[in-house]
């Protein structure tokens, strides 16, 4: 019984669905070239898609499990070597192997992009390949099925109706319509063929959800080519800084504030910004972590903050050569002290300003002092270093340095990404496609009403098995409805086939 059922499934499938999805051989002149034909067939394979998806999952998993070198570190061989040395303490022997396989920078490697490229090609070609078959299923489904179809359909039933054929057909039609099925009929002298389906457009969900992936990738490319990103755009309070990157914008920080909950965690970080275009004020406002500001497609996000030291430097002739807030936005390798620097190119000097370790007594730099280290600009050799107390100028080498006061700086992320809208549209299409596909699946039922010699009618129902899902319950429900419409009690009448999938 069961084994017969299996054969019946395949037979019914072959009868029911037009030869399409997956197995169709591409036709047309272009594909007569066998090389292209082979390439095409290679990409239509679902097995390829599965292999690619699983490789991609494994690669992404490796990217989660292993430390990834930040792009800025990876771009600079020297700092990448340093990074690797630190990684060696964690991964030991494996470090070189992982490094050889580029596993410390997975998401930016060529092979990762290659997998994504292959998968995209696979998606596009599979979609093209399935287009015709799905279109036929949605718009051109057969209404009349043969006797053999009803004999072998996975789910089938035969009901005896004590009424003329046309009446029975009309009742079946209405019963199916009441179950929210779309009904088509074809009549010839001896029988009425009925085809009913629901959610047929659900089939197009496949294309929406797959092509949205391609669209999302296109969005990332558009963003990469036409956009820019400055993740560490630092502006000190009172200072104005040019955005650059081909824009005519500059940003002034009026004020930065941070607030904390009584329990300790941060409550609010906000920057009051003014945006200038070609020197003219065009926008002003307060940005917070969850409310960025945008001007002509350039967005300003609150990313981080810190302290600055306002430094005033005079040269031997007492002329002021520097008077600005120096953001202490980096950390020293030893002691993790906040550090910032500025260049005095006229003097061939680079000056580092180092603040005390926050939150504890720093033995080297007491609170209220800054350590100032002066280096030669060309050779990088140390000229002199001194601690400078706030408000007390001090001679360091041939410079006179004053630590005027502390202020704050804000760290912004400045982003322009024209691809992002493509990504949101694509995302909406993806969710729409998936919801159509899985929450409103396409269901199809065929019926055949035949006139019997005694003036009564025989109604046959058939539903094909779907490979992915059993329709047992749906078929049972419809059979009951149709039976009731024909005046047959749910428990009796008719012979029913079908059951669970095998």
């Amino acid at each position, binding site marked *: 019984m069961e084994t017969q059922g299996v054969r019946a499934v395949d037979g019914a499938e072959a009868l029911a669905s037009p030869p399409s999805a997956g197995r169709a051989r591409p036709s047309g002149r272009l594909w007569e070239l066998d090389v292209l034909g082979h390439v095409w067939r290679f990409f239509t394979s679902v097995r390829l898609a599965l292999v690619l998806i699983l490789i991609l999952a494994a690669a992404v998993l490796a990217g*989660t499990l292993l430390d990834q070198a930040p792009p800025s570190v990876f771009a600079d061989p020297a700092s990448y070597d340093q990074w690797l040395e630190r990684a060696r303490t964690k991964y030991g022997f494996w470090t070189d192997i992982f490094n050889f396989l580029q596993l410390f920078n997975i998401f930016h490697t060529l092979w990762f992009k290659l997998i994504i490229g292959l998968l995209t090609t696979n998606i596009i070609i599979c979609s093209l390949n399935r287009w015709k078959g799905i279109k036929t299923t949605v718009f051109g489904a057969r209404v009349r099925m043969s006797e053999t179809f009803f004999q072998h359909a996975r789910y089938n039933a035969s009901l005896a109706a004590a009424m003329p054929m046309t009446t029975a057909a009309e009742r079946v039609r209405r019963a199916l319509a009441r179950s929210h099925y779309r009904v088509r009929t074809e009549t010839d002298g001896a029988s009425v063929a009925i085809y009913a389906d629901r959610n047929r457009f659900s089939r197009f969900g496949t294309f929406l959800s797959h092509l949205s992936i391609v669209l999302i990738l296109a969005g990332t490319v558009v963003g990469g080519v036409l956009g820019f990103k400055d993740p560490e755009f630092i502006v000190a309070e009172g200072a104005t800084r040019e955005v650059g990157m081909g824009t005519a914008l500059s940003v002034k920080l009026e004020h930065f504030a941070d607030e904390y909950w009584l329990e300790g965690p941060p409550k609010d970080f906000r920057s009051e910004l003014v945006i200038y275009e070609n020197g003219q004020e065009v926008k002003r406002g307060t940005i917070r972590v*969850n409310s960025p500001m945008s001007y002509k497609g350039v967005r300003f996000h609150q990313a981080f903050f810190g302290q600055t030291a306002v430094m005033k430097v005079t040269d031997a002739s007492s002329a002021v050569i520097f008077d600005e807030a120096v953001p202490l936005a980096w950390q020293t390798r030893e002691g993790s002290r906040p550090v910032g620097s500025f260049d005095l190119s006229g003097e061939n000097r680079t000056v580092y300003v180092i603040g005390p370790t926050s939150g504890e007594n720093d033995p080297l730099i007491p609170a209220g002092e800054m350590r100032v280290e002066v280096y030669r600009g060309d050779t990088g050799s140390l000229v002199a270093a001194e601690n400078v107390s706030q408000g007390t100028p001090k001679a360091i080498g041939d410079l006179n340095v004053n630590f005027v006061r502390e202020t704050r700086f804000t760290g912004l992320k400045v982003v322009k990404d024209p691809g992002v809208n493509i990504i949101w549209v694509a995302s909406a299409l993806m969710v729409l496609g998936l919801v159509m596909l899985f929450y409103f699946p396409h269901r199809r039922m065929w019926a055949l009403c035949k006139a019997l010699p005694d003036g009564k009618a025989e109604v046959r129902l058939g539903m094909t098995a779907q490979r992915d899902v059993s329709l047992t319950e749906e078929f049972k429900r419809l059979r009951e409805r149709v039976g009731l419409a024909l005046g047959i009690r749910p428990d009796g009448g008719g012979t029913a086939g079908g059951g669970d999938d095998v």
Partner: protein
Amino acid sequence: MSELSDYAFVATVAALSTAILLYLVYVLGAGSLRAFSLADGGSLATESANGPYTTAGRYGTILAVNAFAFLTASLVFRTIASGHGPFANMYEFSLAFAWGALALYLYFELRYRLRILGLLVLPIALGLLVYATTVPSDITPLVPALQNDLLLTVHVAVAIIAYGAFALAFGAAILYLVQRRDSIRWLPRSTVLDEMGYKAVTVGFPMMALVIILGALWADIAWGTYWSWDPKETASLVTLLIYGGYLHARVLRGWRGQRSAMLLILGFAATLFTYYGNLFFGGLHSYG
């Protein structure tokens, strides 16, 4: 309000534990009586005639519904007490995950009358609640990155539905592996379990995609990038890829049974990793 939430939590644990015991009595007792017969196979339901064990099962369901109601109350009280959705730290996430697993399970029990799945899903929910007792349950104020009421609520609410659905699929897959030769008379037929796993994934998969998309949208607002390969983002992508692989294998290549059950187990491992991964890997999601 905070205390009410704690009382409701205790009530949840009590109701859920008792429900699991009753499910156990139902399943083992019914099994020993061989109350289920394969002749029932035509329908998805495995319920048979009345009997003491069926009664135990019915009370088990009632208690599970009660546990669900208590847990809902606990989350509501907590929301009122804290002034934001109960999604701000690991304690709240765990309660919400348990809520999602219970909600999805009860929906499936109601719809397909497959009480047996409860024996696997309810302990998962209980495990999450027990885990919650081991992490600090203080109400924590929202750090600036989380101060987006709409996205916090929708992003996490959708996530717990997806996770709940995947927990259910996991339960079905485990039962499938136990029952793959249809050798245990009191378990549903293996095809039914296989089907149930698939249905759960079809509920969870679109939700999981939505979670990732909402997360990307939020990241774009708060951090200025929709994707930064943060560990939690990446792990959620792995999860989506595994279930995507499962769907393709099953729908287009006809994978059934053991192979697809293994994928469901792998998928749930990835789900748990997504859920707890940030505890081990830090990253932008390290709030709790």
